[in-house]
């Protein structure tokens, strides 16, 4: 039984509605009470990098706005009416009905309602994401299970080089758009054709292409494994799992070599790319070295308070490339037990002196209580959420908001992934330090 949570760092399963919003011209239809859409949008998008409503987010999302009547007598009729009229009013290519607590506790037969539209040829799927069922990492995978089972069709040809990219969760990660773009650039740099499902691009057409890919690429410690495994079962598409978000030269090089090898890209092509990218990257790193070595404002030790994507990805970069010392790491999402060993192994892949304690499922109190036990001899670098700026001030640390909720920054196309992303991160970290007193 999970305990109480102070300072939320993710939302409930219905938060998957933002993953639908992230697919261009896909339209979520919420079958739930009147406040779910507003609260989830507020938490995942507006209060998290101010990501906006986009094409059909925020208060534009169709919703049955369930009342007492639907709770007492069932909400199937209300849902049917909402879907029917959504199809008239809203201009989209894929419709996704997502349920909330009211519908799931009452037990509406949503599948029956949705099938009646699907049978008439409407591109529509449903997913039961009542908030009590789990968090939005869980809801995101439920959404994909629904799209795979109810929408995707087997392709009669495999497109060589086409790679479906599965990684950070849209909106939960405020940097998702830039990050997926950066991953796509890395893949293109070695001759692969990335299929990016979210953000500016092909929208629902990219969803339809999923079954014809050469392979699925999962860049994630654990989230998304169910999805790529299901795709393998259903369409026979193999998957390649790379556990850490590649940030910086070491990890980006390692990523390109391993994905290149899996995809059958000639080693020479991969090595040429890495050489070119590193030369450019190190041109800037060389320029940064004067500041990094010769000023007195150097944080020796760092703390990450983020989900496993970022805790792991940032830790690797800060240790392997920037040469900092990990103090303690917090993984904020509840990593399911079955995946815990996988994540733990990844956090342990450093030289002995560089392995730090990791706390899973951290909330505000975990962070506060654990950090109180540490003695910082210098001002620590604290990469967390906007919640953590308070504790960072108390510790006289340098805070940089990198994880949900990021409410002190506007985030548009910024990313910390890849080579350029690592340069942005270096700029941001040292700008916080230099800006802290002037």
């Amino acid at each position, binding site marked *: 039984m999970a305990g109480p949570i102070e300072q939320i760092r993710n939302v409930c399963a219905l938060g998957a509605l933002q993953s639908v919003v992230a697919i261009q011209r896909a339209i979520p239809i919420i079958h739930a009470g009147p406040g779910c859409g507003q*609260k989830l949008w507020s938490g995942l998008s*507006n209060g998290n990098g101010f990501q906006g409503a986009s094409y059909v987010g925020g208060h534009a999302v169709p919703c049955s706005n369930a009342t007492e009547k639907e709770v007492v007598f069932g909400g199937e009729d209300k849902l049917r009416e909402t879907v029917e009229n959504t199809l008239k009013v809203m201009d989209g290519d894929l419709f996704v009905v997502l349920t909330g607590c009211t519908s799931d*506790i009452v037990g509406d037969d949503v599948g029956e309602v949705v099938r009646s539209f699907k049978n008439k040829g409407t591109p529509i799927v449903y997913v039961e994401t009542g908030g009590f069922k789990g968090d939005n990492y869980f809801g995101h995978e439920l959404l994909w299970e629904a799209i795979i089972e109810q929408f995707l069709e087997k392709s009669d040809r495999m497109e060589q080089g086409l790679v479906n990219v599965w990684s950070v969760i849209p909106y939960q990660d405020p940097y998702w758009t830039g990050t997926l773009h950066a991953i796509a650039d890395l893949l293109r740099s070695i001759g692969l054709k990335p299929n990016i499902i979210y953000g500016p691009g092909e929208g629902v057409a990219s969803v339809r292409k999923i079954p014809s890919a050469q392979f699925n690429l999962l860049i994630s410690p654990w989230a998304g494994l169910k999805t790529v495994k299901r795709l393998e079962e259903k369409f026979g598409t193999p998957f390649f799992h790379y556990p850490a978000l590649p940030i910086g030269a070491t990890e980006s090089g390692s990523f390109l070599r391993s994905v290149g090898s899996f995809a059958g890209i000639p080693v020479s092509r991969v090595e040429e790319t890495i050489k070119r990218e590193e030369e450019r990257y190190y041109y800037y790193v060389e320029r940064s070295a004067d500041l990094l070595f010769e000023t007195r404002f150097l944080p020796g030790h760092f703390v990450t308070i983020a989900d496993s994507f970022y805790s792991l990805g940032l830790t690797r970069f800060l240790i392997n490339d920037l040469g900092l010392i990990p103090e303690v790491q917090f993984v904020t999402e509840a990593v399911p037990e079955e995946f815990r060993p996988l994540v733990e192994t990844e956090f342990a892949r450093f030289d002995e002196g560089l392995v730090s304690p990791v706390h899973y499922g951290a909330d505000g109190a975990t962070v506060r209580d654990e950090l109180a036990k540490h003695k910082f001899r210098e001002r620590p670098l604290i990469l967390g959420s906007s919640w953590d700026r308070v504790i960072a001030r108390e510790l006289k640390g340098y805070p940089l908001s990198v994880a949900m909720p990021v*409410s002190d920054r506007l985030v548009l196309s910024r990313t910390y992934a890849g080579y350029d992303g690592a340069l942005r991160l270096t700029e941001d970290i040292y700008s916080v330090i230099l800006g802290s007193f002037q």
Partner: protein
Amino acid sequence: MAINLNLSEAPIREARLGAITGYNGTLKDLVSRSGCGATINNCERSFSQTSSCSSGCAQTLLANIVDAAIVNHAPIGCAGDTIYHNIANHYGRFYRGQDNRNIQLINTNIEESDTVFGGAEKLRAGILEAWRRFKPKAIFVSTSCASGIIGDDIKGVISDLGEEVPIPVIPVSCEGFRSKVWASGFDAAFHAVLTGIVKPPRRSQPNLVNMVNFRGSAREYITRLFGRLGLEPRFILPFASVEELETISEAAVTATVCTTLGSYIGTALEEQYGVPYVKTIPPHGVAGIEAWLRGIAAAVGKQGEVEELIAEERAATVDDLAEIRRRLDGKTAVLGMGPSYAQSYLGVLEELGITVLHAASWHYDQRYDYGEQPPAILRAAGREEDVTFSVGDQQLFEIGNKLSRVKPDLYFSRHPGSSVWGAKLGITAVPVIDEYTAFGHRGLVNFGYRIIDALTNRHFVTKLAERVTLPYTTWWFEQDPYSFLEQEVI
């Protein structure tokens, strides 16, 4: 109908105030058919977009009481809005010079097994944790759709705590599905404060004004105005302390910046403790501030002082207002706001020389808790010209359709996530997010110049509108904006 503080929860606005969320007609029609004992029926929609719920409104008030805590008995998503509440918390604390802290809120994280076996244990654990972690002066327990449907006995859990938690622990009934009027959540919060925090007066504080508001940006301005009447404002609920809230029963008068917000607590304090509630139109614009200040002054016997103050404020702003009116003359607008603001701003925009072509109100209370129709709508309906008027719980598809037909110069809206949709249509959108926008003579001048600025450089809006597409079909833009609102049964 008097407010009953013996009830365990405030009845929702639909039941208490005849509140509706569906109407299409005109201002005069709405007013005539909902006054003098008449009641207008609500019209349902057969298509709707996601609106907001009571829980958000309750938490937005309670989360910023500086030394209280909230236990949100809900799945984690119901705390999604607390991130925004924390932004408001930091903003408010920063500008008040208070220490830098996060809001004190714990979510009980209701999961699947709790929907089967009940969530009482989790609630108990959450309350104990809130007490251990924050040592607050009071704990509010906000409910959710999930806790309501599974039927957790909130009061039972609280009473079983006994001396383990030696502070008031107060339930706040704000299940989202209970009311379509999110402002019912304000009443839930006030009911909790009135029943769990406020104490009977031990003495009278003849200078104290309970100033019911949200974020309180106009504190200095109000303090100066009230000072001239020998009065001191106490801004509630956000950024007040539990101790300050205990004694609001001792105040000389209760005033509010938003009559939608103030109705429940103002009326209850008047009925229960004899603290007069100022029932004038809200203090926006010239007519608003003057009526409001006179209302406050009348309650404390300062009629002479207030006239002097009003004359000074007028004199200080008369030239600017003339200039603003000259520059805004002939401009047209549509407005979409909560009821108090929609009604009040009909008057404000008229004072600025702007013609309102249509007003949309996020809901409509047919009467306030003290039994009368909202004063601002009566005033607006008393003008010669009628105006089309709609009521909808922020249904953007209706607003977008209406805006595309009416094509006003300006769209004024109040509520996060509404103004951008006007801008996407190429209409200069002026959001009224701060509750003290157009407050008083001087606020009206600032607002006027802000509108002039918005109309002076339209590049951002124009270029945005040229490049974005709205999520609606062409078919929809060819329909009447209220096609999905059921026909009224009269």
